[in-house]
């Protein structure tokens, strides 16, 4: 038996690649929800909303300070004992939920740091000419904060994509699951995991390239 069969590698490449859309879909859902939740958490912390602000602090500390796999298992197997909703949840949904909970903690810290980096005088200047507070945030503060936040959020997104691979342990049909199915048929670990790694690598390389392009664009603006 050859150590590495190129023919088999090419054949299995197409099969595993079919699971890529699922990986992307999970990533995009989780990105979307964790951005929204992250922004809300950031604003709660930034404007020191009573009680909630302390809860968010603990939340962020917990989700940033514990392993993602353990969080996923706790949710999908642990909490499922008490919750009918979680028992009925598909692995896909459960993964999106836990990814969202986890990454919103990271995103909220990025967003908050970015809002903090905008000089308070910018907001005051906008108020002083008669802008309502929300408009001042939208037109002046958030565009300046976004420029600071985008590189960090983008790195977060790349980590998120990689973390989706953990989902196959609870039965999500992603590329890792695709590779496992093929391995069970032919026992060719090297080719199958090789495909997974290469696809992830290409994907994150493209995103990193886009990120550096975007950062150049953002740095040029003013």
């Amino acid at each position, binding site marked *: 038996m050859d150590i590495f069969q190129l023919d088999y590698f090419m054949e299995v490449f197409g099969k595993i690649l079919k699971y890529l859309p699922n990986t992307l879909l999970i990533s995009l859902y989780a990105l979307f929800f964790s951005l929204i939740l992250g922004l809300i958490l950031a604003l709660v912390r930034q404007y020191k909303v009573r009680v909630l602000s302390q809860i968010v602090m603990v939340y962020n500390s917990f989700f940033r300070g514990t392993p993602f796999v353990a969080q996923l298992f706790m949710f999908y197997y642990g909490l499922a004992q008490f919750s009918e909703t979680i028992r009925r949840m598909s692995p896909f949904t459960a993964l999106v939920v836990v990814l969202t909970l986890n990454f919103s903690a990271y995103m909220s810290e990025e967003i908050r740091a970015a809002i903090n980096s905008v000089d308070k005088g910018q907001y005051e*200047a906008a108020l002083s*000419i008669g*802008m309502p507070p929300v408009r001042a945030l939208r037109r002046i503060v958030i565009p*300046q904060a976004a420029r600071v936040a985008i590189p960090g959020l983008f790195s977060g997104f790349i980590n998120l994509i990689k973390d989706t691979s953990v989902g196959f342990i609870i039965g999500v049909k992603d590329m890792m699951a695709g590779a496992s199915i093929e391995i069970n048929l032919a026992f060719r670990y090297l080719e199958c995991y090789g495909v997974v790694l290469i696809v992830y690598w290409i994907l994150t390389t493209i995103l990193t390239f886009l990120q550096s392009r975007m950062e150049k664009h953002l740095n040029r603006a003013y």
Partner: protein
Amino acid sequence: MIEIQNLVKHFGTLKVLDGISFRLEKGQVLAVIGPSGTGKSTLLRCINFLERPNQGIIHIGDTQVNAAKASCKEILALRKHTSMVFQNYNLFKNKTALQNVMEPMVAVQGMSAQEAEKRALEILQLIGLSDKRDSYPSRLSGGQQQRVGIGRAMAVNPDVILFDEPTSSLDPELVGEVLEVIRNLARQHRTMIITTHEMNFARSVADRVIFLSNGKIAEEGTPEEVFDHPQQERTRQFLRKFSAN
């Protein structure tokens, strides 16, 4: 016309403004002088509610606001009557000189972009910065930034412009160009309240002068009255420090 009655502001237990009242007619320039930390900036920031006063009544044009129970709507209405020039300029960093001047007209007054640009170009000409229209604040000198700041404050055509130590962050050689722009506004009879450490400027540009000390108005009058014939010992002491230099 602008009228302030019994304005009070605490920061914690510290009473920064202790019952300030004054009245300013349309077209007049009021200079507020006094030692550092005596509440000059806080007074201006209370007038447009960047700091919320604890009590007092602020009356500008047709808007009257009772500070103790001001609603968001009232505060917004008040701010539309005023504009502010900041000590450290606070130009919108993500906008060019032209866009900075246009911003109040577009985002507050709802003017079309075309009309706002036309007006903004006129204002840039007035402050002598037509050639800097497309420069971002980071590319402008302090004096140029502050002139754009004044241009932005003029753009809303406010009932009163509040100048919070407009030349304090400037290198000495840049002070003149900014004062000249303010002098021009005074000649056009814009209503202005200016806090400043430039005594000669205050004397020459102001119609009325207030000397603020420990959160109270210690002395008030025309420039001649306050600068040449101060009645209070504290005013004399303060002014002596300036003539000594």
